[in-house]
């Protein structure tokens, strides 16, 4: 199908169930809230090598955060609640507790809880203070060198989070593909509960499962490498000079769908002259992931 000169492949993105959560990190200024959030979501592009996928969902104004300071909502996902808990505790301890002036709060509801402050309270060495409010919220105050680290005891676990939504943005030139991908990312960042965990939201090294070498879990997606056109069973016609992928994770199926829809619309709005000429999606034949995001349905 072609919309506004952009070919939309008749295919779907195949996505998987993940365990997810969200936290709110605040700081004395926007700069320090972002410092902490960026550190916490660093090296969290893919569960394959990082143990989790994480990203900044959105910045929060002082009227939105529990302690009325600038904040950032971070979403983090992993393949199991156990691994998610491990990643959450490690990253909280190393990247949020350590950040100047930071505080940390639950960012999502959920009857099953993940330990947040409960996991690092002993850093206080006996001087940590428990505070439980009459609405059920529980906090830890941990003395640190710049004052106190205030941290909510737990955050919610989302068991039906979705990982692996994706778009393949294809342009005639590198510049055109990058321009389209950036437009898509900007639009997708407006969607709540969805993150694009790779650098700047983009993946240039999309992968296929396995490879010719023993032990390789994934290897380059040769069908979409323009330099291999002719040498492999390529998915690219001669007009495509560059492919950039956007991977989308979300705390719900609808969040991923909304983000993909926003991205597609942005690419179509930009048009083929300045942006992408084609948009596709990656899947495994529909047999592995329970979630299927058909591009046609998203742009309908």
């Amino acid at each position: 199908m072609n919309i506004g000169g952009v070919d939309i492949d008749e295919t779907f993105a195949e996505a998987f169930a993940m365990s997810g959560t969200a936290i709110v990190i605040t700081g004395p200024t926007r700069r320090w809230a972002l410092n902490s959030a960026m550190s916490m979501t660093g090296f969290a592009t893919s569960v394959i090598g990082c143990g989790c996928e994480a990203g900044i969902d959105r910045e929060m104004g002082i009227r939105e955060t529990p302690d009325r300071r600038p904040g950032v909502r971070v979403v983090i996902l992993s393949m199991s609640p156990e691994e998610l808990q491990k990643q959450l505790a490690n990253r909280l301890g190393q990247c949020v507790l350590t950040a100047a002036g930071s505080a940390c709060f639950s960012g999502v509801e959920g009857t099953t809880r993940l330990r947040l402050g409960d996991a690092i309270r002993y850093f206080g060495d006996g001087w940590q203070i428990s505070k439980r409010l009459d609405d059920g919220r529980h906090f830890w105050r941990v003395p640190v060198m710049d004052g106190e680290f205030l941290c909510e005891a737990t955050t919610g676990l989302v068991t039906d989070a979705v990982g692996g939504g994706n778009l393949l943005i294809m342009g005639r030139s590198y510049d055109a593909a990058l321009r389209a991908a950036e437009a898509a990312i900007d639009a997708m960042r407006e969607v709540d509960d969805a993150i694009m965990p790779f650098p700047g939201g983009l993946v240039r090294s999309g992968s296929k499962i396995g490879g010719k070498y023993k032990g390789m879990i994934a290897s380059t997606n040769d069908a979409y490498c323009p330099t291999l056109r002719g040498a492999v069973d390529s998915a690219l016609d001669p007009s495509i000079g560059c492919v950039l992928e956007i991977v989308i994770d979300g705390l719900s199926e609808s969040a991923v769908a909304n983000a993909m829809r926003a991205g597609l619309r942005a690419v179509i709005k930009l048009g083929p002259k300045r942006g992408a000429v084609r948009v596709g999606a990656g899947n495994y034949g529909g047999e592995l992931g329970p979630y299927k995001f058909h591009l046609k349905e998203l742009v309908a």
Partner: protein
Amino acid sequence: MNPFTFGLRGEPDQRLDCSALVPHRLASLTEAEIARIPLNTTKQKITVGDVFRIRTGDLADIRFERGSERLDNVGEGLSGGSIRIDGPAGKAAGRNMVAGSLAVVGDAGPFAGSGLSGGRLEIGGDAGDFLGAPFPGEMQGVRGGLILVHGRAGRRAGDRMRRGIIVIERGAGDYAASRMIAGTMIVLGATGRLPAYLMRRGTLVLSESAALSPTFLPCGRFAFGFTAMLAQHLKRESRAAARLLKSAFERYAGDMAVTGKGEILVSAG
């Protein structure tokens, strides 16, 4: 639906034990059965019907029209719904409340909110001594929930408090937050001698400096994230407390006569 109303006929001749007049204890009773509930605390038997004019209504919303300082134990063990007394209450209003809300429009006697572990107790006037405190022999006072006193509290408010929040808007008597185990108590206005005496853990927030025990040690002036967050939490309950909590505080650690892990936060203005 209209509230279930107990209209006080006149000042009672004796103190009355009103602990039975809570929603969960009245739920299965007819109006006649409710009227036969004994309230007397002396040998002279007095029933609900003798003291109150009953108007049936929603049992989850009980109203005492007029109050009396002789109405003891109102809302005892309240586990849901709401009770409102349009006047003063006697001793131990809201004792051992678990959930729901109890509003005393006037003054409350001693031991209001004693052992409260959940729900919300609001006192429009003053509270007597031992607000939230345990009865003799008990180990813990308030264990959760919220107590809000718009007036002044007597001596030993928050004694042996274990958890929860107490807000007192117009000052407290001597030994406020004595033997505090944990939790948060906020006092606006003047506080009597030796606040937080023998406090183990917990937080006592004061709007004005008070005569502290020498076993509380100054730590310096700080702006706490927790108090800023608590200000947001309490702004609908007490705007004055919310304003206070947004300020910086002088922190005093103590009571060093016991564990020394509690704190008094005195507003630095």
